[in-house]
């Protein structure tokens, strides 16, 4: 299990604050929440870490023992865990809803779609071709972030928290103890925008400075490239993540068609 950095402060007696961070899903995950004592805060932090690590084990293609890795290496139908099975079905729905621009098979050499099939009776999945490679990189953080949000609010009754998955997937539960939301701005100099998160999430997709483009246009199979990053704000962290990825990959003229199914989500270029 990854080690947790944990801080608890009661310096402001009106707003005791807890903070934890750890490494998972190839990034740094941070959670800040208020109004809990130290012991409970530690327990919550460990629960968040455990949940995230568990999901990573289930959804990562980089872990050799994961069901997704097995699926990617097998020509046969593979029995998969509940989260992965659910995710595979959901991802196919999102692929259709985004006109193919969100596609977990985008890294594949083959453009054959659908790229996989799920077998409900056996709780199995099977790739439609040996060149198909499935990657939940543009999905798992949003999926896990929503799960963490539900854990905090549902299991522990936390009302106010800010959750950060690698700066690109962020969720605000409730509000800052001294304000009416969690105001978050892009780190990029001169952007001037502020996203007021209150029971909502934010996802940003784009090119990381100094790093090659990593988002694939699933329609052409080439690396997507845009001058600006795409930020999507809305209720579900998962939907924000899927939409920001799809919009970055898609040509601008396709945006209205993609967004017609997601009217409640706000899109900005930064």
């Amino acid at each position, binding site marked *: 299990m990854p080690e947790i950095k944990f*801080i608890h*402060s009661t*310096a*402001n007696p*009106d*707003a005791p*604050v807890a*903070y934890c*961070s750890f*490494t998972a899903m*190839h*990034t*740094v995950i*941070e*959670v*800040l929440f*208020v109004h809990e004592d130290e012991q409970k805060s530690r327990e919550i932090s460990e629960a968040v870490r455990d949940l995230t690590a568990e999901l990573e084990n289930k959804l990562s293609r980089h872990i050799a023992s994961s069901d997704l890795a097995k699926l990617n290496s097998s020509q046969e139908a593979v029995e998969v865990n509940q989260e992965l099975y659910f995710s595979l079905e959901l991802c196919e729905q999102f692929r259709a809803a985004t006109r193919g621009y969100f596609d977990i098979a985008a890294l594949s050499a083959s453009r054959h779609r659908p790229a996989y099939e799920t077998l409900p009776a056996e709780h199995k999945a099977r790739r439609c071709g040996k060149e198909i490679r499935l990657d939940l990189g543009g999905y798992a*953080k949003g999926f896990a972030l929503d799960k963490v949000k539900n854990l905090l609010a549902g299991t522990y009754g936390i009302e106010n928290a*800010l959750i*950060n998955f*690698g*700066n*690109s*997937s*962020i969720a605000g539960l409730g509000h*800052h*103890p*001294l*304000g009416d939301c*969690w*105001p*978050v*701005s*892009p*780190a*990029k100099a001169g952007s001037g925008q*502020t*996203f007021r998160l209150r029971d909502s999430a*934010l996802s*940003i*997709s*784009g*090119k*990381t400075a*100094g*790093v090659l483009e*990593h988002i694939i246009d699933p329609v052409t199979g080439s690396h997507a490239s845009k001058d600006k*990053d795409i*930020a999507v704000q809305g209720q579900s962290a998962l939907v924000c993540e899927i939409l920001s990825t799809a919009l970055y990959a898609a040509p601008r003229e396709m945006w209205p068609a993609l967004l017609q199914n997601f009217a409640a989500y706000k899109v900005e270029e930064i």
Partner: protein
Amino acid sequence: MEEKKTMDRRSFIERLGGLGLAGAAVAAFPWVEACSPAANKEVAKEKARIGMIGPGSRGYFHLENMKQIPQAEVVALCDIYEPNLQHASELYPEAKLYRDYRKMLEDPNVDCVVITTPLFCHFQMAMDAMDAGKHVFCEKAMAYNIDECYQMYMKHLETGKILFIGQQRLFDPKYLKAMAGVLAGNYGPVVNVRNYWFRNGDWRRDVPSPELERHINWRLYREYSRGLMTELACHQIQNGTWATGMLPEKVMGTGSIIYWKDGREVFDNVACIYTFPNGVNMTFESVISNAHFGMGEQILCKDAMVDLPGSRVYFEEPPRKSGIESLIAEIEEGIFSNSAFAGTSFSAENGSKDKGIAIMPEADGDGTVEIMEAFCNACITGKMPDKVLEEAYYGSVFSLLGDEALLQQKTLSLDEKYYLPTYKGRNGA
């Protein structure tokens, strides 16, 4: 200028003390005691009377350094190349001049010799010197082939004469401090060692007359030199055995002449992989037709990368400034403001942009003066510092084995008979 250098040297000794060279660390670097304040006190006012064989470029550099070492007295100089001999004589006009090193070895005023000649000469000169009762400091690489290295080591045991090889990194304070951290496990287990040395030049020296070509540019010809593996790799391979505490189990590699096709016989680019018994790999790469990457010696540990020449450590998880963490202080102070941290994803698979943490920011020098000082002290006391020769021996031997692997295009292991009876690495290989 001289005063500053002397002060630097004092500060080196102080810094060694500052490294906390006690207990376990002394066991790791026992040789540094040879230039400790106690060792210097023991030899105060005594002199090591030095005869230098081959006062060319590297030799002249040592001669200049000896001016800073009170216990070093240069009494003789020897070279078959007259311009070098005369040049060195200007620095030490009182030194007796020789054209034949064997004559110099008969000089009873010479206690010890410093050999800075081409590689192929090291063996015979060192053997003759020890047989003549002289202590020896021999520049690296130790000798032209592995068997000669072994014979030199055994001659040292047989005669009891001091034998130093010019692996100055063993006395470089920044290397010592970095290695202390590696050996203490501060950065996690060693998982890889990367060495490289990139230059862009033909490696030639001016030749005043064509018949002197092979004499002056000896580094380029197989008869005299083992090329990049003995001239450059030797220093770096020694770092790997030092850091891991193990001796490589095997080496493979490839080399060729890709650019400097000027009649030279040694490779102008090489790449070697050494594998230690626990599976850890150590690489050495050298190209002398592109200098972009310069020189690097990097110990990759599970939790950090240690840059030896840069004296910096780069942690895998460096402290990050986080918008969320900074919120703690704001909430403590009753401040409500927006946090500017959102952006494209940080990926742990990206190369680190971390600027690292200095291990020894005040470090200067490279250990060349200190190793010579330690040699002088050892000559005066007759006490051979522990393990310094063994570390150097294996540095040379595994560089030579690497060159054999390049030539034979095979994966090679060191013949059992060349493992030293006194030291087989901390893994006892």
